[in-house]
């Protein structure tokens, strides 16, 4: 039975647990069994407590038996990226500096998941403090791509993407600062949504770059992603950057097809660095759009070419400040040393990995007296120009279609010694992050070698719905979202 349960949609699982057709404990057992076969090899989890998962599922069943009405995600396991706080549970952010730290409070999204009667399913592996595009920067373990274990699942939400792709969990939460939900979604062949900045409260998300960070859902279908988005989004008075304009997505509207939609394409993004198979997939989808009655128009994003340079000033600058609190004084790792300054140095020296240190240095430099105007301030100005590019483009379009990544998933170790090559992998995902607009990565096809290809849709602020509607229409045409990676089809031993 577990073989079919884990292939069902979160929507159907939640409905059947809510109606009592199926027990939450059975659902949890099915996914735990699936995870027990693959999670260690995939390196998807940093923490997963089976007992508490089953206890929470039993509690859902008990409440249903008492006749209580249950939420939309009743009994649906949701894996949580390990930079989101769950009360009483470790939150390491993939870093040694928080190795033994447990969060004493729930993030806003966690409270919302509890309200929706979801099962908190464990903490997924990620690049340290969400800095990376391969999950190789986790201080604990790399994660692997379920389609090819020699390749990376992307990052930084690599664990969250891989676990959903391998059907170890039906849903997961990631966080996206410059592409950390979308890029691993593309590499693993799942749906990943970066909501509009302000649509989901960041309260309880461990900050990397505050003006860019957004928590986003990962799922195997557009409808499931919408379901999870609806559960976690909406204004929160504890996050002053959360926005009242946020709207829930109508699942009904997702079925309306693409007829009449205007889709923009920025040709300048389809230049030399783009893998030919991804380009071919892009062309297939854009042709399909036209065939389905959408119109495809050219748009210009003239400042997108500065996005990486801009991002690598703003994000590290904010990170250098956000990570100052890990100083060994109040919690987390403390490495005793001579005096205060030596203790700071020893603690941060041992607690942080190379990429985190690199970005702290970058950011500290960019904010320094004498450099601030030339770097940080200039970057903020370019960011405004990029935002305006998107505003301009959205005046005549409903969404923009673009790649998520320039290449299919790369091999472990291939780029880990070359930070610039790693940074360039985010070339397509960063512009939408800087603009603050919603962006979706959806499974669009496969390479000849059997690796997933994702494409990206970006939209108007707070119009996540249109992006998922397009992805939903593509799901009905293509089997890209329904294919299972080999590891998910292995039979129980």
């Amino acid at each position, binding site marked *: 039975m577990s073989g079919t349960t884990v292939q069902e949609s979160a929507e159907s699982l939640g409905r059947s647990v809510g109606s009592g057709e199926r027990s939450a404990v059975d659902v949890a057992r099915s996914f735990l069994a699936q995870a027990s076969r693959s999670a260690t090899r995939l390196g998807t989890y940093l923490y997963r407590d089976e007992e508490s998962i089953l206890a929470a599922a039993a509690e859902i069943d008990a409440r249903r038996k008492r006749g209580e009405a249950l939420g939309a995600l009743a009994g649906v396991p949701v894996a949580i990226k390990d930079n989101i706080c769950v009360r009483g549970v470790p939150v390491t952010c993939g870093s040694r500096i928080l190795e033994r730290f447990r*969060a004493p409070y729930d*993030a806003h999204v966690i409270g919302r998941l509890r309200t929706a009667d979801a099962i908190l399913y464990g903490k997924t592996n990620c690049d340290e403090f969400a800095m990376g595009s391969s999950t190789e920067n986790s201080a604990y373990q790399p994660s692997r791509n379920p389609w090819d274990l020699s390749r990376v699942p992307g990052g930084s939400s690599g664990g969250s993407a891989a676990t959903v792709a391998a059907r170890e969990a039906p849903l997961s939460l990631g966080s996206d600062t410059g592409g950390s939900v979308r890029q691993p979604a593309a590499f693993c062949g799942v749906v990943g949504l970066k909501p509009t900045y302000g649509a989901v409260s960041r309260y309880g998300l461990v900050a990397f770059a505050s003006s860019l960070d957004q928590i986003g859902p990962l799922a195997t279908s557009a409808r499931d992603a919408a379901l999870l988005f609806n559960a976690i989004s909406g204004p929160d008075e504890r996050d002053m950057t959360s926005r009242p304009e946020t709207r829930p997505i109508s699942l009904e509207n997702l079925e309306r097809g693409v007829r009449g939609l205007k889709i923009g394409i920025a040709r300048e993004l389809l230049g030399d660095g783009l893998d030919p198979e991804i380009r071919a997939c892009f062309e297939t989808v854009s042709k399909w759009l036209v065939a389905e009655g959408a119109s495809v128009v050219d748009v210009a994003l003239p400042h997108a070419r500065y996005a990486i340079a801009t991002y690598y000033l703003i994000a590290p600058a*904010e990170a250098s*400040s956000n990570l100052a*609190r890990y100083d060994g004084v109040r919690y987390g790792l403390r490495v005793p040393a001579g005096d*205060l300054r030596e203790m700071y140095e020893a603690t941060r020296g041992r607690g942080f990995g190379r990429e985190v240190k690199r970005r702290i240095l970058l950011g500290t430099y960019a904010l*320094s007296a004498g450099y*601030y105007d030339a770097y940080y301030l200039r970057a903020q100005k370019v960011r405004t120009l990029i935002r305006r590019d998107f505003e301009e483009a959205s005046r005549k379009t409903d969404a923009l279609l673009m790649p998520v990544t320039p290449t299919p998933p790369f091999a472990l170790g291939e780029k880990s010694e070359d930070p610039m090559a790693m940074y360039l992998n985010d070339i397509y995902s960063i512009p939408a992050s800087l603009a603050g607009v919603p962006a979706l990565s959806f499974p669009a096809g496969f390479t000849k070698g059997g690796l997933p290809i994702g494409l990206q849709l970006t939209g108007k602020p707070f119009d996540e719905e249109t992006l998922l509607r397009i992805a939903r229409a593509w799901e009905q045409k293509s089997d890209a979202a329904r294919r299972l990676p080999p590891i998910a089809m292995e039979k129980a031993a």
Partner: protein
Amino acid sequence: METAREGYEPVIGLEVHAQLKTRTKIFCGCSTRFGAPPNTQVCPLCLGLPGVLPTLNARAVDFAAMVGLAVGAQVAGRSVFARKNYFYPDLPKGYQITQYDRPLCVGGSLTIRSGAGWKTVRLVRIHLEEDAGKSLHPEGREGVETTRVDLNRAGVPLIEIVSEPDLRSGAEATDYMARLRQLLVYLDVCDGNMEEGSLRCDANVSVRKKGASQLGTKTEIKNLNSFRFVDRAIAFEIDRQIGLLESGGRVAQETLLWSSERGVAETMRSKEEAHDYRYFPEPDLLPLDLSREWIESVRERIPELPHQLRERLVREQKIPEYDAEVLTDTRSLAGYYEEVAARSGQPKLASNWIMTEVNAVRNKSGLTIEEFPIRADRLGDMVRMVGEGKISGKIAKQLFELMLQDPASPAELIERHGLLPIDDEAALRALAKEIIAAHPGPAADFRAGKEKTFAFLVGQAMKQSRGRAHPEKLQQALRAVLAEER
């Protein structure tokens, strides 16, 4: 030194940090109450735990804007919070949330005493920020250095009020501090308690040759947490800088820390060691936008300010400016005065009694006017009797002492303690006769033309009557009896 000092002009600017009297902290719901056991008024935000976000306390903004409007500053329609980055154990996040290039209030001024007159001290800005925690350095055992951190204070709202370098002496600086404190207390936005650190001051000090237009190199003295320290530290630093210049040296730009124990300012860090705070806009808080209507609604709630109240008392009560200044020390003292003046119908007499007797008792006992045992209605009744000549000043003083101990009305206390004045002619004649009989010598001397002894006889009679005798009528009676018995 004395003559050297004559040739120089000190130039002083103050940066005053004032804790705002909000119930909760600036970015979370924790209590701001002073004196709780260490680390009992803290939450994940105060501790700088991973994932927490600040939410702005609207009350703190309201208070800060009110201070700005009260000093005539421009309250910005948009101001921006910024992070000031530095590492210190009592700074939980590794940065302080403050305001940098876009503060809440710009400009404004404060009028202070300067010698016999008044002068206007211009303000640069007033901005909102959070306080840090407190580092404590208890004696470690066997010389082991330990530091303990109390984060109860972390996140208490502060305003920083920065003056232009318009002050010219320690005395002016002290008066500026005192008037600023008075203003904040009048506005009810700060408790003004300097011992508890509700008001703290850093001073920028430089000296230049009199007549010079260019400013000298300044030093910043930190940790001036009482009026006395402000005065002493500035005087110390002025002397030090003049001494340096006079001996051919130069003033180094540095930050000094005032040591109240030793009465000296010591180098904390040189210019080269100055922090680079890497300020940048706080991404967790949106720019603070305030509408004109909101700002005007704050302006409407500004209570009567010290100088306005002072001017009104001079105008309405016809009392000297000096009296008005003393009586407006606090709003409640002024309120007390107004009640006593109204009840007694004797504005100047009421002022005299409060400035002398009431304040003498309060100074000795440390009581606030609210705690003072004689309420305004009772003092008003007493002052009325004095004013109407029903009791003498001497009786009034006795009565005042009784009133301090006994909450009964003045009339009742007069009755109970037999303090009623003797103004009955027959009784006074009897008293005069008794005194003359008891002092035949002085009486005879008077009759012999020694006018001086009359005062002695009056004094004796007053003493005998325990001050109750009506002074003029007594004198009349004495003269009459002395004349009759000649």
